[in-house]
């Protein structure tokens, strides 16, 4: 069910453009910074760059696709929890 059929649409560009603009520049600056420091091969940076390609899609599910891109796609429970924290990107089978 779509909930916005009966509402007056807000001006989302006016509300959110400047916010999105500075976040995009932050991402670009982060990639520049990690590259200058020789850290661009970190799997998290690689996975982030891969996830960024989801922004170029035409359907309005970019947030979902970015989240899926950064997720562990496996289905079986792992043998032992390696710790408590999450890294934000899936390193691959080597981490399971």
């Amino acid at each position, binding site marked *: 069910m779509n*909930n916005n059929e009966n509402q007056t649409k807000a001006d989302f560009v006016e509300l959110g453009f400047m916010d999105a603009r500075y976040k995009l520049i932050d991402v670009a600056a982060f990639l520049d910074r990690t590259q200058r420091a020789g850290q661009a091969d970190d799997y998290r940076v690689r996975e982030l760059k891969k996830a960024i390609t989801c922004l170029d899609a035409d359907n309005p599910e970019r*947030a979902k696709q970015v989240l899926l891109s950064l*997720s562990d796609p496996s289905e079986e429970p*792992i043998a032992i*929890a390696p710790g*408590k924290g*999450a*890294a*934000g990107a899936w390193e691959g089978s080597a981490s399971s």
Partner: protein
Amino acid sequence: MVSRTTDDYVKLVQAGCEAVCEPAFWAGFDRSSAKGFFDYFSQLTKYEPARAAKFGLPHYCWICLNPKESEDIKLAEDVLEIIPDFLDSPTCLGVGEIGLNKNSKNELEILERHIEIAAGRDELILVHTPHLEDKLKGTKLIVDAILNQPSIRPERVIIDHVEEHTISIPRDKGFWVGMTLYPESKCTPQRAADMLEVHGTERIWMNSACDWGISNPLAVPEAAFELKRRGETREMIDKVLYRNPRAFLSQCPKFKL
């Protein structure tokens, strides 16, 4: 609210909050024995309700061993033994927040034990889904584990911390879902408003993360402001912020509002 100051209770009341529901969670460090959990559960069921009552705010809780501490099976079993006594507390609404953290075999075993306890007592269930890259897999494992217990009705379970890639997994099976709002790193009020626009307002609520990390007890009112700013109706905002949580929680006869 055990990790918050009393000022936060005052702010919640001033913002129009009608009741607080606090799940058992990880303290930021591992407790060393079941005695530590006994003290913590006592704090949730006795001290916090009294602290909130000073401001006219009803305080309810959920009791369990958080999945972050279920890797140690022996400790988990000791804690599971004391849980039923605390579930009997007059302000305890059910078992929660159970779930998974790193999606390990031991975490899954302890999750299943919690589900058995809830099924045997016909308790409501509040579920924690894993963070970040572990959320998708964990949400699927949790939904399967609960559906494997046929006496549990999905409408008596809320799967919390859903995001854009997981919201449909439990909702399509008849579960309630919760969006936990954080100032950073996870679901923001803006994204919660987006999900409500896309997925509608049935069987869904929002809650403010109020733990020892960077979190904001007034995140739900912020989301209400975001919805209002987008032109959503007063009726819709009241349903998501107030009537939906009341409808789910009122399935427990101890919950009065």
